[in-house]
């Protein structure tokens, strides 16, 4: 498991629930450390236990927890860099949706060892899409619900109105149904292409 994923979970917990809760959960897991190095690799089992421990402590179902993490990654100011990198994918939400299949490749360009699940988009007309999130990436961790959170927050970011539904899991992928109701529902957040270098 790439450390970036564990690190994302850690940032989510620390920024949403505080350092105390994070240290508490980590102490129960007894891993011998209480922070993840984003540029190192960890066993999948560590991530699974971490998610399990968090679910118990926060009394959240695994799916809801993963979706919260996805939303956090796009919308929290502490991780603005991720939102920016995602916004480079498209000039509007529809453009972003159509560029989703490139996302794993884009991630690999940034961090060569990061193996995100494959994404496949199928259009069914009238603003309806079916997004298939592969089960193969990052040791088979299911990231479909994280994707749900990311999509929901990105729609907000672009000012689009969407309805999302997780339609279950097949042998090879999870299925998310996307219905784009209004691409220009709200004005969304601005995106300054050249702002990244100024910020840091």
């Amino acid at each position, binding site marked *: 498991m790439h450390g970036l994923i564990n690190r994302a979970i850690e940032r989510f917990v620390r920024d949403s629930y505080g350092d105390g809760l994070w240290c508490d959960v980590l102490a129960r897991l007894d891993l011998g450390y209480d922070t993840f*190095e*984003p*540029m190192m690799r960890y066993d999948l089992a560590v991530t699974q236990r971490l998610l399990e421990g968090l679910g118990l402590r926060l009394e959240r179902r695994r799916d809801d927890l993963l979706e919260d993490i996805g939303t956090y990654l796009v919308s929290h100011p502490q991780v603005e*860099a991720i939102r*920016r990198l995602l916004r480079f994918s*498209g000039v509007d939400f529809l453009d972003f949706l159509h560029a989703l299949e490139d996302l794993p490749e884009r991630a690999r*360009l940034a961090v060569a060892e990061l193996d995100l699940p494959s994404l496949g988009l199928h259009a069914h007309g009238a603003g309806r899409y079916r997004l298939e999130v592969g089960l193969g990436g990052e040791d088979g961790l299911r990231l479909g619900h994280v994707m749900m959170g990311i999509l929901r927050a990105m729609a907000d970011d672009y000012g689009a109105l969407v309805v999302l539904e997780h339609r279950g899991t097949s042998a090879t992928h999870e299925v998310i149904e996307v219905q784009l109701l209004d691409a220009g529902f709200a004005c969304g957040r601005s995106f300054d*292409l050249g702002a990244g*270098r100024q910020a840091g």
Partner: protein
Amino acid sequence: MIDAGRDALCELLDTLCPMHAVLDPTGHVVQAGPTLRKVVPDRDPVGARFLEIFEMARPNMARDMADLRALAGRRLRLWLRAGPRHALKGVLTPLPVGQGAGALVNLSFGISVVEAVRDFGLTGTDFAPTDLTTEMLYLIEAKSAAMEESRRLNLRLEDARISAQEQAFTDTLTGLRNRRALEHLLERQRQAGQAFALMHLDLDHFKEINDLHGHAMGDHVLQVAARRMKGQVRGDDVIARVGGDEFVFVLRGAAMPDGVNNAAARLISKLEEPILRNGQICRISASIGATLSGLYTTPDITRMMADADAALYAAKAAGRGCPVIHDPAGLRAVPVLRGAG
């Protein structure tokens, strides 16, 4: 005046190359793409002479339309005459004869693309869908973020390395340096070429304390003794615990045997002060053998250690609780008797 064909061409060019300009035979801009208009914000480029807006730098200067047409197909390098001086890249191609002797120029940002995008306030829609500029900006930002993470990781690893090394070089009981640290340090000290004294100290009566009062008391005595030793040396001097009750001092800058002898005598009296613990009183003393780098033509660490050891042995033979400085002439120095100084 603009006919339908010209109109269609306009639209086509706006989509395919939003940073284009169409020049008429006199070199005036008759049409400008939407992004080019953003780059020339203070004036409408249409109607102006192209070379009034831009300065051609490479491959040749250009003064008029004839100069420009001579550069057809070449990689152009030019600057805005007003505004941020980001280098632009361009290519010029003559229009078909039917259009007169005009030309089409297409521009793009060079290596300064990040600054240009920021300064001109451009967005993703300002670039042709086939343009790789946004991908390039994405890559720059993604790689900078990844590099930053790696840099932070390196800093953390460096901190961890330093603290591990610190631990590896520290005697855990007393907080003094250990034998390994001493070896490193002595080698560096010798290379530095600066005068120093080497002092070998052995606690007297320490074994009896361990036997009589137990190891807890022994440890306590060692800790108190270490604190007293630290209090007697200067900040850049080094004390290492090299055995159970054996210590080596490196006194930096020490060049006078008398000075070292006095310092050693003071240290011994300090160590002889009674040590109290849980109502029990312990007394120790120390014997010291020392030598100075200044006593040798070429200081050699092994030789100096051997001489300090021999001097320590002499101090013990002289009845303990006293310092002996190595005497290169082979004459045994008379130990300073307690209470005599």
